[in-house]
């Protein structure tokens, strides 16, 4: 331990091992662990737990495996308990606990020693028991519950109880155990408990000693031992590899970068009218789409189901749908507008999914029983989210069109073409949203025994559909001009946002509770407000130009 250097990193005082910086966690990441109702590589577990505790994808650039191991194997409490690694951003809770409003990261000790925290937990437990069930909306309670979960995450890593690395001898559905749990180890593996435990402790020793070769060797030995002891239960090397490859590829991040480059290429070279740049931009666009597809294939392989079961996956699927429609339209019209608008929209949504893991949880989780039907999941959910995607494209085209109205009102042919495109995309959205909503009814009739029950999610998708129908009828009758069709395309998307995000994150009632979540409301509201201000500005400019 002499080779330890103390380094003050931005925002936290973390103690790191100089030698550990060179450790290779490849073999350690391939250990299988059971958590959250499925078996996963330790690599995934480490990423998820670090993201849960810190709210960030990585902590100061350290490998999540390194962070998890430093908690699990570090000697003594000083190494971890004073590190400010636990994120607490919710102001009312910070105020309640008497913390500085500007601090967002706290150490385990600060939180555990806070005199107001335990009474608060006790109070919440009591009120939950008294209510019999959770209150519909209780942000402080939710945030305090999330904080308690973070503390538990840290504690369970420190005492190794979270490292459920040891499989059941024969039953693939039974619980795995931690090698540190002596009593259970003896009941699971009466003959091999000591051997397994020693192999586990050897990993810790190698890690603490900063011995990269020994770490790899010991991890491989540990995995080999368990696979040999419980061959039916231990997941195959290939399944683990798939997931690790997905973790390291980060296809959705690569994808938004490709789309961003594509967007820049298409926009900056618009004046050049060179087919080289046009097709180059489109190739980048297609590359981004391909990367999205790759990510989806991986997630399907890992989870064994269509990847549209939570907010994160639906955001990505909507990006995918918008890009796909845009590419098809682009090949039909060769206008550049479709690809550029869609690229803008896709970059925005994918960055959201990539950068806000607290709100949009990227972890792969098992499904609630009601969703366990791949046929309906694929038909209803994919259709309805493709409808959102088409409206997303409509929305993007509407904005480009409004921008042209503001800054290039003389470009008549482009304006007319853009309006035509907006209308085209809106038609797809109406068809898919109507079909998706109705398919939801068919599924509900099948699963719940009723076709339609005015559940908030059902109701809002109908509201979204109706609002676009109003626009289409207004357009058909000629009441909506070219300009106001584009305004409507921008405004109506708010109903889609409400059906998509608002019902699950704001209203928080109804039967679609498996999609519920918290967070992001302030950002979404600010975004919508700013966007509507832009639309109002465009309308004002248009009016004053016409006058």
């Amino acid at each position, binding site marked *: 331990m002499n080779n330890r250097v103390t380094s003050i990193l931005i925002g936290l005082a973390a103690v790191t091992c100089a030698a550990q910086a060179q450790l290779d966690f490849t073999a350690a990441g391939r250990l299988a662990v059971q958590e959250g*109702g499925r078996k996963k590589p330790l690599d995934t577990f480490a990423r998820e737990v670090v993201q849960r505790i810190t709210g960030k994808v990585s902590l100061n650039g350290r490998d999540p495996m390194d962070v998890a191991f430093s908690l699990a194997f570090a000697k003594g409490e000083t190494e971890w308990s004073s590190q400010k690694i636990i994120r607490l951003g919710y102001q009312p809770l910070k105020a309640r606990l008497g913390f500085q409003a500007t601090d967002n990261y706290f150490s385990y000790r600060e939180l555990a020693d806070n005199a107001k925290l335990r009474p608060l937990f006790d109070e919440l437990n009591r009120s939950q028991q008294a209510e019999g069930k959770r209150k519909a909306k209780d942000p402080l309670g939710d945030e305090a519950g999330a904080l308690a979960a973070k503390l538990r995450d840290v504690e369970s890593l420190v005492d190794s109880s979270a490292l459920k690395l040891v499989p059941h001898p024969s039953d693939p559905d039974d619980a795995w155990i931690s090698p540190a749990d002596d009593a259970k180890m003896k009941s699971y593996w009466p003959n091999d408990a000591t051997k397994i435990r020693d192999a586990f402790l050897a990993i810790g020793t190698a890690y603490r000693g900063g011995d990269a070769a020994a770490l790899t060797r010991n991890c491989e030995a540990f995995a080999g031992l368990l696979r040999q002891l419980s061959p039916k239960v231990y997941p195959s090397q290939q399944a683990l590899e798939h997931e690790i490859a997905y973790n390291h590829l980060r296809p959705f991040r690569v994808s938004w970068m490709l789309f961003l480059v594509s967007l820049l290429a298409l926009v900056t070279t618009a004046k050049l009218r060179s087919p080289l740049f046009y097709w180059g931009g489109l190739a980048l666009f297609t590359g981004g789409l391909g990367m999205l597809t790759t990510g989806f294939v991986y997630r399907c392989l890992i989870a064994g189901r269509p990847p549209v079961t939570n907010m994160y996956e639906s955001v990505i699927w909507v990006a995918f749908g918008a890009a796909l429609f845009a590419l098809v339209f682009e090949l039909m019209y060769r206008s550049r507008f479709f690809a550029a608008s869609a690229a803008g929209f896709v970059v925005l949504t994918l960055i959201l999914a990539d950068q806000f893991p607290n709100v949009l949880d990227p972890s792969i989780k098992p499904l609630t029983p009601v969703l*366990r039907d791949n046929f309906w999941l694929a038909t209803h959910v994919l259709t309805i989210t493709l409808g959102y995607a088409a409206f997303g494209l409509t929305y993007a085209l509407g904005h480009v069109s409004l921008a042209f109205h503001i800054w290039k009102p003389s470009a008549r042919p482009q304006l007319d073409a853009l309006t035509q495109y907006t209308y085209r995309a809106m038609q797809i959205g109406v068809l898919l949203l109507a079909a998706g909503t109705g398919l939801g009814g068919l599924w509900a009739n099948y699963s719940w025994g*009723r076709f339609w029950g*005015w559940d908030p999610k059902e*109701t809002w998708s109908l509201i979204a559909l109706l609002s676009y129908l109003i626009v289409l009828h207004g357009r058909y009758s000629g009441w909506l001009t070219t300009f106001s069709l584009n305004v409507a395309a921008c405004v109506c998307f708010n109903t889609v946002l409400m059906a998509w995000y608002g019902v699950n994150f704001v209203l928080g009632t109804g039967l679609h509770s498996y999609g519920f979540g918290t967070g992001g409301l302030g950002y979404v509201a600010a975004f919508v407000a700013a966007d509507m201000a832009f639309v109002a500005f465009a309308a004002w400019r248009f009016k004053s130009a016409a006058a």
Partner: protein
Amino acid sequence: MNGSPGPLLRLLGSMKTAVVTLTALTVALAWGTIHESIHGTPAAQREFYYAGWFSALLGLLAVNVAAAALLRYPWKRQQTGLVVTHLGIIIILIGAMVGFQFGVDGHITLLEGQSANAVVVQQETLHVADAQGATLRRIAFDFENSPLPAGGARYRLGGGMELELQAAHANIVEALVVEHGAGEANPALHVKLTSAAMGRMAAFEEWLLPRDPNRSEVSLGPAALRVVEAKTPQELAALTAPPNPAEQTGKGTLTIEVAGQRFDFKLDDVLGKSMSLGTTGFTAQPHEYFADFRLDSKTKKPISVSDQPNNPAVLLVVAGPDTEVRFFLFANHPGMNIARPAKGDGKNVTANYSVGPSARGARIVVIAGPGNQLNYASNDGKGKFKTGELKKDATIETGLADWSLQVLDFVPDAKLRMELQPAPVNPNDSRRSPALRVVLRKDSAASPPVWVRWGQPTMLAAGDARVTLTYGWETHPLGFTVKLDKFRAKRYEGTEMPADFRSFITIEDNARGLTRQGEVWMNNPVTYPADWFGVRGFKFSQSSYREGQAGEPNETTLGVTWDPGWPLKFLGFWTLCAGIFIMYYMRAFFFAPRSPTPPSGTKLEQNAANKR
């Protein structure tokens, strides 16, 4: 519609009506969901989705959609999409109406081994049966929307019988009624406690009975109120004597467990001293005692804010070979205990701190007797003791926080009986017991007024007439029997998250002489009687469940529906989708495009059509 359509039809089918109706519907729906998120689903359904005005709005939409299509008759080929789409909407709306009017939407709840032959529907009814069990009348209520008239209501039952419904109350409780004249001593006290600081919620007013262990003591948060009987002056003297101070001052007990061995210490004896723990090689030292622990907000150091044992805490250090653990222990909040290993992992050492009830148990005792006298004795648990005489109706300060006590009535020879009485209603209380007060009349004879409680069949007699009344949810006969054989819930590996839960049911249909077995789970309903489209059969779908604890049977709730409008909804939905598709994407097939788009767009559109 040959010739010119009437002005009314033209108005109903106009684009203006369409846009106005759609906008009104959109606003109403949005408002409804917000209402639901604030006031809950039943309120939203009552005031929005299933309200009369909402049905009227949907009706207007149907008329508008139909009129818009009819106005364009005779239809041209390129109008196919429009007509088909509008037809789809009308079929769906008719299907919804049929389902709403004639369908059954209920549930059955069964324990393993139980069976049912009827569905429970969410409709309050009073079922009246004669002495043989034959239904005389079924009266449906909706008290939320149409409360009972002030004068009550009368229902003819046939055979000269008449039922008078005098009152409906959403919560009836069995209340104790105390009267004089038992003929022997049986004290009863009507006691009222009020606290200005704790507000109305803490007010307590009830009859307490010293001789009934279930009704002699009430817990008031940290304090307790007890009534006792003193038969002799000696008993009274003992009850009003001040407590022994020796029992009061104890600082409590420390319990330390090391390597499976347990050690108990009285904190008064060991505070500040270092003790060796048997032969374990460990020592323990309670360093500091805080009677009223608080963490100083500035220095972040523990302090005691008073010498009263309001929040007793101890700083204890346990040390041994390779181990040193610093404990912060709280007598009133063991959940807050902190164990911080300074050396080693400290997993083999645990410690606990407790303070006996004598130092904490605040209580007030009201003493009845001997004879008609009343006394009280209060102890705030911190050494303050108070005693004195109590006069009926006089308010005294108890000495416990700011509680004041009043004995509203004292009956030394109480005759007791239970009576059903209306009680305050908390609409969110699922255990409240609604009831109807009814009188049965036949000719000149009448029964006394009786409360018929929810779910409790009640017999009524007037003269020679006998009826049984059952107040509860409406039931709908199935025509066959459903039995729950067993219920099983599977979990996701290593978690408590349900992965799959299913009911194994047996359907016995004596009329057809059939027995069917089925498994109901999420996304896998059972329909019986089965037919190709599920038109005739009841559909059983898994709704919720409750697992029995410790060998008790599991309970399942199945949704049971029959929707005669279902085929229409299904047909309407596909018609609608086909209509939209035709309208947008098959215009080339149905000839000349109309022009919903500006002229410049038409060219593009034609190009697109040509490409396809």
